[in-house]
């Protein structure tokens, strides 16, 4: 008899389980759009073409901008002396929820924001905030820039995760030894391999940017709004009349995302041919190095400074007393808003933390069980389970999931929201865990088994402790993703579970800067605590184990 035998299909079963909310949501949305004549209602919806074009255009432009900047930063600067501080500067931005980033940028750029204050009246002559439409511009420029700034750190860290696996430093050195400058060394020797590894993260950024509600609500155009925001409004409309239209709108967004991904792939193929042609032409282009480095450094610092300044602005607003225009700093500080809103803040904080902890713990358990049962290779269903939820827009699934929930009744609110969060947290937990899980030297478990250790003992005594830093990082990322969830929380709970994110965004349309500041500060502080624990705990536990602390 031939051996080894194929393992049982436990992993595939678990993968199917993780896909359940996504498939249920998608099926629900399709049924809703079809049965309620939603497509016809959508077709005659005023401003549809403009909304769809805005979603497509801003999403695509933000993705192109974020990808170009991330590649330029890593290409021009990785391995140079200034890169480590830059990396440390950009890493915390990954923990920043999109809503907090958008609100922070809004506070910076609104006509009464910090930038206008810093320039007034000495440079602008303004003594009152000008009547300018800087944010919510009709072309979605501020939305595009905000999305790009928030996604650059994500793409950069994804690229850095595969950087050593691709042997990038030696590829760069080899190309340089052949007379190539830094930019062409990167473009010809590293980029082709890097681009293959970045395909999925870029598609995820594209799908998110085209369908983001959180950032579009704060920074996007309003008349008409991008399609995702329109779909949200139809979903939330009183009565159920607009639900089929919302479902059809969600499906239209999905079709747009698929089209944009196809366009992205075709362009990537074209660029790859162009790059191959240029590489063979022998061009060194060393003159590009200095300006490339300068631009990359300026862009990275500018972006990080913008996002950090926005968060500092939120913090300051939350404790600001009187703060008339054009003063750069408030006249006095006070904790009034914190005291007055204590009840709402602590309630939202408790809900957010409880949801985050529960969802992260469940996602970690499921993710680890999935990896443990999958063996050495990821099967196609498993890969789909990991990646599919990152590519299907949340707003496409929500009308279907909300309709299904309505049939189940109100008793399922918490389980439904937990399940809804898990659909989007689990992929990130798995993405974060899969690399470290598979990079563990396969001889370690083999040695342990030869010493008589059972698979369970190997998991608990070896894999789990050895992967503790990665598990904690995955947990911190999952926690941050859960905290940032807006649509699943809002729509699956019907507004019955207020969280920091839903409350901050609900306040965004009003003018209470102080209260928005207070909610946003907690919204960014909570994931930061998670990442801090993930960073510090392994250093404490393995303080005397050098082999566990090396990169």
């Amino acid at each position, binding site marked *: 008899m031939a*051996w080894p035998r194929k393992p049982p299909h436990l992993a595939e079963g678990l993968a199917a389980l993780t896909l359940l909310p996504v498939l249920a949501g998608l099926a629900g949305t399709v049924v809703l759009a079809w049965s309620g004549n939603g497509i016809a209602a959508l077709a005659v919806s005023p401003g549809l073409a403009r909304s769809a074009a805005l979603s497509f255009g801003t999403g695509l432009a933000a993705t192109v901008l974020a990808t170009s900047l991330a590649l330029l930063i890593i290409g021009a600067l990785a391995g140079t002396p200034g890169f480590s501080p830059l990396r440390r500067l950009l890493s915390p931005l990954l923990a920043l929820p999109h809503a907090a980033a958008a609100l922070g940028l809004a506070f910076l750029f609104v006509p009464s924001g910090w930038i206008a204050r810093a320039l007034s009246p000495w440079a602008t002559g303004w003594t009152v905030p000008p009547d300018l439409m800087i944010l919510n511009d009709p072309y979605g420029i501020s939305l595009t820039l905000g999305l790009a700034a928030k996604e650059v750190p994500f793409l950069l860290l994804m690229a850095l995760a595969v950087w050593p696996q691709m042997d990038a430093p030696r590829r760069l050195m080899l190309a340089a030894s052949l007379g190539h400058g830094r930019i062409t060394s990167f473009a010809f020797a590293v980029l082709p391999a890097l681009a293959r590894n970045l395909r999925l993260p870029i598609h995820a950024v594209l799908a998110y940017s085209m369908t983001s509600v959180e950032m579009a609500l704060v920074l996007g155009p309003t008349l008409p709004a991008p399609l995702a925001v329109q779909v949200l409004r139809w979903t939330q409309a009183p009565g159920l009349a607009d639900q089929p239209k919302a479902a059809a709108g969600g499906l239209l967004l999905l079709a747009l995302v698929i089209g944009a991904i196809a366009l992205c792939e075709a362009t990537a193929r074209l660029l790859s041919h162009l790059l191959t042609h240029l590489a063979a032409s022998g061009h060194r282009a060393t003159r590009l190095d200095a300006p490339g480095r300068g631009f990359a450094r300026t862009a990275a610092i500018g972006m990080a400074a913008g996002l950090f300044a926005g968060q500092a602005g939120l913090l300051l607003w939350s404790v600001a007393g009187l703060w008339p225009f054009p003063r750069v700093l408030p006249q006095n500080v006070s904790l009034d808003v914190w005291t007055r809103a204590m009840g709402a803040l602590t309630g939202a904080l408790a809900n957010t933390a409880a949801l985050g902890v529960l969802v992260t713990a469940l996602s970690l358990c499921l993710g680890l069980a999935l990896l443990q049962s999958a063996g050495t290779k990821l099967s196609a269903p498993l890969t789909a389970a990991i990646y599919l939820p990152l590519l299907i827009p949340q707003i496409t699934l929500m009308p279907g999931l909300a309709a299904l929930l309505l049939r189940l009744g109100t008793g399922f609110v918490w389980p439904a929201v937990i399940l809804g969060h898990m659909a989007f947290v689990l992929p990130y937990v798995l993405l974060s865990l899969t690399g470290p899980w598979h990079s563990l030297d396969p*001889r370690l478990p*083999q040695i*342990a*088994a030869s010493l008589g250790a059972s698979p369970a003992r190997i998991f608990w005594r*070896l894999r789990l402790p050895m992967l*503790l830093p990665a598990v904690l990082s995955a947990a911190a990322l999952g926690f941050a993703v859960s905290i940032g969830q807006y649509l699943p929380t809002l729509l699956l709970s019907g507004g019955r579970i207020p969280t920091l994110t839903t409350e901050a965004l609900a306040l965004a349309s009003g003018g209470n800067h102080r209260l928005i500041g207070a909610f946003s500060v907690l919204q960014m502080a909570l994931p930061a605590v998670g990442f801090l624990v993930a960073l510090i705990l392994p250093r404490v536990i393995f303080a005397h184990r*050098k082999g566990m602390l090396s990169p």
Partner: protein
Amino acid sequence: MSLQLDHLSITLHGKPLAALNITVLPGQPVTLMAPSGTGKSTVLAAIAGALDPAFRASGRVILNGRDVTGLPTHARHIGLLFQDAILFPHLSVGQNLGFALPPGPNRHVRVEAALEEVDLKGFGSRDPATLSGGQAARVALMRSLLAQPQALLLDEPFAKLDTALRQQIRDLVFEKTRAMPVILVTHDDEDARAAQGPVLTPMGLPL
């Protein structure tokens, strides 16, 4: 004690990589020699029960008269030593040895005795990352032996050691494993000579 490879054959996409029909006895290590990438380590993985599913194998692995072919690695009682010591980095040296030791009394004393046996007395609390190559190799050997294997597979275990250390560790390994069947994989003539047993290719041809 014996380790019998009963018509063990391994293929990859239909291409034969190994074909062995041998019995290994204590004190007569069998050495498998061949250039890199020709399937030597794959043979050891098959014997240990850790063959990658991409390969197909047939035949039987019989240890002391017991057919272990269908058993998982941890139930086979076959030890493994690689060219790297592969100590578990999150455990101390003593805990590494304790991991291998079957449950029983006086564990601490037995770990200490094992360390003393290889001139590493007092190293129990040390971080494995602070050991020299030779020290780590000795700990790895004692860890394998503490699990009380009934056979040992050596996958180029001396390849990364310098010349002086290589001789010393090689002597130690063969001295400590004299009482059990051993299969050594190497492409070093000196290792093969030191093993003092038959030398074969993975296809079972004598060299």
